[in-house]
């Protein structure tokens, strides 16, 4: 009889200890938000352009986490699709042309003498990359511009151009097909 009692006691004690342990762990190691969304958001290029049909990169990340297609991000292009495919464990597929095509990197440029200072582009810019005030000339901070295109449409005087970024020798990709043509054809050495 006492043996049975001891057994019951021991088992219930163990259950209690583990219960407490699990309870503690669930509080101590609590994960606030869905880590998958964070991970997807990290991969997306953060242009916030909305070409995927969602208002920004994070909403699209949430949509992907909920099973949306991974090929709706033209600024990210193939590299992003590849990364997303690896993360989600699905096959990489070509970019969905309905959402746009992969293009060279561009930045917005305001033709400053045509700008009337309406502030419409400032309101449209998702990353606060446009500087200016009402009735004052506006300008784009090139380093902050993600090239999302969103400022072009609101401009009432069409003074915003999307200009491809200049190739610099530092960002050059050792692509001998994409070099400026000099008077000698470049051949690689070594």
């Amino acid at each position, binding site marked *: 009889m006492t043996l049975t009692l001891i057994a019951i006691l021991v088992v219930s004690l163990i259950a209690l200890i583990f219960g407490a342990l699990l309870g503690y762990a669930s509080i101590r190691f609590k994960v606030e938000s869905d880590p998958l969304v964070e991970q997807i*958001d990290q991969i*997306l*290029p*953060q*242009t*916030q352009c909305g070409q995927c049909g969602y208002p*920004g*990169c994070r909403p699209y990340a949430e949509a992907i986490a909920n099973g949306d297609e991974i090929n709706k991000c033209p600024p990210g292009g193939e*590299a992003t699709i590849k990364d997303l495919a690896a993360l989600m464990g699905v096959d990489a597929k070509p970019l969905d042309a309905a959402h746009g095509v992969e293009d060279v990197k561009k930045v917005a440029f305001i033709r400053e003498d045509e700008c009337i200072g309406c502030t419409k582009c400032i309101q449209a810019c*998702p*990353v*606060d*990359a446009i500087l200016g005030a009402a009735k004052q000339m506006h300008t784009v901070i090139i380093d*902050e511009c*993600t090239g999302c295109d969103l400022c072009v449409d609101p401009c009432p005087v069409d003074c915003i151009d999307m200009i491809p970024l200049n*190739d*610099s*020798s530092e*960002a*050059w*990709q*050792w*692509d001998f097909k994409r*070099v*400026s*043509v*000099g*008077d*000698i*054809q*470049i*051949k*690689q*050495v*070594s």
Partner: protein
Amino acid sequence: MFADYDHIMERLALQQLWDFPGGVHPQQNKTKSNQTEIQRIALPDLIHIPVKQHIGVNGDIIVKVGELVAKGQPLTASESAFAVPVHASTSGKVIAIGDHVAAHPSGISELTISIEVDGLDTAYEFKPLSDYTKRTKNEIIEAICQAGISGMGGAGFPTHLKSNNVKPIEFLIINGIECEPYITSDDRLMREHAWQIRQGIDILYHLLQPKQVIVAVENNKPEAFNTLSIACQQQDNYQVVSVPTKYPAGGEKQLIQVLSSREVPADGLPVDVGCLMYNVGTCYAIADAVIEGKPLIERVVTITGDAVETPQNVWARIGTPVKHLLTHANYDSDKQAYPRIIMGGPMMGFTLSSVQVPVVKITNCILVPANKELPTLEDERACIRCSACADACPASLLPQQLFWHSKAKEYEQAQEYNLFDCIECGACAYVCPSEIPLVHYYRKAKADIRLQQVEKEKAEKARIRFEARKARLQKDKDAREEKHRLAAQARAQTMTNDGGAAKDKIAAALARAKAKKAAMAKQNNEQISAVSEETYVERAKERPSANTEISKSAALPTDSDAQDIDALKVNAEPNSSADDAANAKKAKVAAAIARAKAKKAQQAKQAKENKASDE
């Protein structure tokens, strides 16, 4: 741990060195160009000085188009520690500041200052540091920085940054290896200017206070070894060491390994193993900068290859177009099936896209090979997994694995195989039987990875800005809504809770207004009634006494007067009790009439008085 100082010193004394893994022995071809002295050449008509010729950031341009500049005049200036100025390498007029083809494998144009040479070569005022041994470390480093010196061995790292070292140094290593085939610029410089190199070493010794200076010269340059040995013989702790010829013994990490058996960690610097290394050309430039105050405006350039008739070394001003050098060395275009000009050596150099490319601070050689002199990498074949590249790699990497992963753009795996430890020496490509341009793949992979990193950082920045903006807009919206809500609440509250009070207030305000009007009306009425009362009183007095003249005169009012006063009294009486505005207005009108009548009455009275007094 690595070999300790005493052990290394013992071995050095016995001329016993270590070795680095791999390496190759390409044909030297150095005697083509090292037989004659370094030539002074005629100035070119135009020089093109790129604003950035080092690793770091460029300075701000401080000259204008059309400005006359003197030899050695600074063209850029900056407060940034990572900026090194560039100087006009001869006197002339600035004719353009703009894009010009850069000394870079891409042939991309970069910001360049073009100067039309006037041929006078008038010098800018140089400010030497007199007796540097009494100067502070900062003064010397500032002088080195202002002279525009960046590592002249090839990397172009700003020398003042390297020299501003606080960690203890055991070995100051002076690199006179020049292991790449064809190049002899350092060789000639050591032979002809060993004394000035020694002065440069003295300055560095004073700055860095190392325990030992090792001057390393490859054993294929016995003349240079001898001259440097003579130049350094007075200094006890300077040792000139002859290093066995093997490519790439001149690599920083490889040379440290050869001299001290110490290995620089993958993500570390030579200073982590107690060493610091300078090229002999840099030492020469430091001596120029400190002792003469002369900035880095020229350097020794080897012009060589079978396609030039007179291979040689020349003192080339920074910014001299390559075409000028080739003309000087009698370039023979017939010897080349197609133009092929290499800047740098055959192992690590790059072909130029234009003969207008300027000589920059890191340009040590212009190589123009004749047909068949150098292999052309046009018939790349499949990798046969022979592993010859792994045997040749001086960094003990696995080039074939790096190749697979780089070609497949599997950059993570490539990084696992330590892609970034590759020094791009080209030994693997040199030994490859399939003629695969291996280094090209590594460079591409490295550039891609760096770009991805930059883009990732940019994306992160954009995300932070986007979220900050979202938060700000939300905050504004919330603040606005809160304001509206509070205002509405306040309104509602005044209507409900404090409703009575508010109504009372309004009522009170109305009452005040009425009372005011009433008071005004009263006042008028009082005036009127006062007038009428007076009359009554007078009349009343008149009747019983009627003695005095005044009372007499007053006692005889006309009938019309009395009637008027009666009418007034009738009118005034209801006015005084009435409250409403209409009545007040009427009262006012009535009061005005009453006043007018009273006046008339008085006038009449006076007239009568006058009459009476006349009588």
